[in-house]
């Protein structure tokens, strides 16, 4: 097996993992702090991708696309939080599942009405359309590399916010005890809205950056959403570090499985069977991985509270 091919696939896995991390960090914060299961997080991802694609088609600039997508997703997130989700924090998880399932239906249909049922085209920005010789002998697409860099920057940024700022302190404190933080004179409602907006912004960023790699279409959020839940469960709910570790593991395992499992199985099986079995086993691998992790550590790899 080719060394540079393996390196390339590992980088692809890392890039995929970073994208999942952008989704997972928001979801895990909302989950860990507000105790809210938000199935509609994938819709924010989709909205980010659509806004970016729309602005890109109008202006031809990916940067403007980002500048529209990020605040756009954040605003949609904040509006949804204020109108509907705020009332669900104290409710049962089941009520939250039902309400946010309703939100998914609503946003999917709204997207179909505004942008039509056909997938939108979003191209890689021109300045990042080249390749970089990061692995000897195998030029790597600059755009994918840029996603890894952005993801790493976001991870550091989130780490600094949560450990070094007053906002982060309040976030951590209200995750532990909402009432006490409120009694100390902090506007917890506003804090929650801000955290939700931040999560929505990151989901929008993930969607906008995934746009050129996936197809921008209705329903694109749901498949990512399921993977994101897998990530935060593996990492441990409420933990940003866990989300990062889980995202990278899931990204790399999924990508490597898809790239190499069929070839590996061809050593034992006939080619047609190996392709079929390999493809489905590759799709199953992260779920198998998750089942193994949960049997070994029922609260995930790096749980937030001890």
């Amino acid at each position: 097996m080719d060394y540079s091919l393996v390196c390339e696939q590992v980088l692809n896995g890392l890039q995929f993992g970073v994208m999942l991390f952008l989704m997972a960090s928001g979801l895990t914060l909302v989950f860990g702090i507000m105790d809210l299961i938000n199935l509609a997080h994938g819709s924010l991802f989709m909205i980010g991708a659509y806004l970016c694609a729309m602005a890109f088609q109008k202006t031809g600039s990916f940067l403007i696309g980002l500048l529209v997508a990020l605040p756009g997703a954040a605003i949609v997130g904040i509006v949804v939080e204020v109108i509907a989700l705020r009332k669900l924090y104290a409710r049962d998880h089941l009520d939250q599942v039902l309400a946010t399932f309703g939100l998914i239906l609503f946003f999917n249909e709204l997207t179909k009405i505004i942008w039509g049922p056909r997938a939108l085209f979003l191209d890689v920005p021109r300045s990042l359309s080249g390749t970089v010789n990061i692995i000897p002998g195998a030029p790597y697409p600059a755009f994918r590399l840029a996603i890894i860099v952005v993801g790493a920057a976001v991870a550091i940024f989130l780490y600094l916010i949560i450990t070094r700022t007053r906002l982060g302190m309040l976030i951590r404190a209200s995750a532990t005890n909402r009432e006490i933080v409120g009694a100390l004179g902090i506007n917890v409602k506003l804090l929650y809205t801000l955290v939700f907006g931040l999560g929505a912004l990151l989901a929008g960023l993930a969607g906008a950056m995934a746009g050129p790699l996936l197809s921008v279409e209705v329903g694109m959020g749901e498949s990512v959403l399921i993977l994101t839940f897998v990530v935060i469960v593996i990492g441990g709910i409420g933990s940003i570090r866990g989300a990062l570790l889980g995202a990278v593991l899931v990204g790399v395992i999924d990508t490597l499985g898809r790239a190499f499992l069929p070839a590996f199985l061809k050593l034992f099986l006939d080619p047609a069977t190996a392709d079929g079995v390999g493809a489905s086993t590759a799709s199953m691998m992260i779920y198998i991985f998750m089942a193994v992790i949960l049997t070994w550590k029922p609260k995930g790899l790096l749980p937030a509270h001890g």
Partner: protein
Amino acid sequence: MDRFKPSVKTWIQAAGLVFLVGLPPAASALGESFYIGLSSRILIYALAAASLNLVLGFGGMVSFGHAAYLGTGAYVVGILSYHSVEGSAFFNWPFVLAGTENAFILWPAAVVASALLALLIGAISLRTRGVYFIMSTLAFAQMMFFFFTSLEKYGGDDGLSLFARNRFGSLDLGNDAVFYYLCLGLLTGFILLSHRLVNSRFGMVIRGSKENETRMRALGFEPYRYKLTCFVFSGAGAGLAGALIANQTEFVSPSLMHWSVSGEIMVMVILGGVGTLAGPVFGAAALLLLEEVLSQYTEHWMLFLGPILILVVLFAHNGLYGSLAQGKIRNG
């Protein structure tokens, strides 16, 4: 003593049953026999929702992967019927298992296969709690989804068409009204059985574990075993619903196991009223009828269904049936 006084709940249930029994002749008389098919679909999903409700409503186990059992039941029917039509065997070793179209063999087989799958998945998932449980049941369902997608022999992604509905003794299942009454009978039977179950000693342990597992353990029960048994029973019920849905649509495909189907079944349970015996029937009827009615007015019916679900959550705390019977329905 309360069971001898007709309560609001009894009236609702009796009226519902009379309505369901009278529906096929009424629909035929009005020349709207299309509604018989739609109603059979509702009854089948009600059966799936009722099985989910056993674990979710009474046991507090939020399974987000019930589509796996539904799909497994459907595939047992689909695959064995396929072999029967083709005249080949499903497998030849260690013994020959030939295909069949006999419902008396197929449906119990669907139930047993789903129950075994639920035993396997439940045994692992029930070691976890809360959201971790939700996600691990989802993960296993996703595995099954991808497994059946990869079965090229049985149509893979595209699924498998049945040649005809199964043979059921002298009953002609191809007749929609006959099929409808069979579904109604099975659903009623399942609900009565569930009623016995949740009010038995076994059911008390299950409900007790939902409230407080530590207390149940202190009383000398091992909740894990009871919960697993309940989970297996629930998977078996969903498997039966799967066998029925395969017959109703004469088609099986991995889309039956898609996670959104698990979500929809869960929505039916919550919509109808969690932990009530008739709730899932109301929930299935409400969701499928709402889809049907809204889609007649607008192509974009989901735009309205979404907010309706949110309003139900915000304002009807116990679900539709729960709100109707005003919370006096704890004991089913």
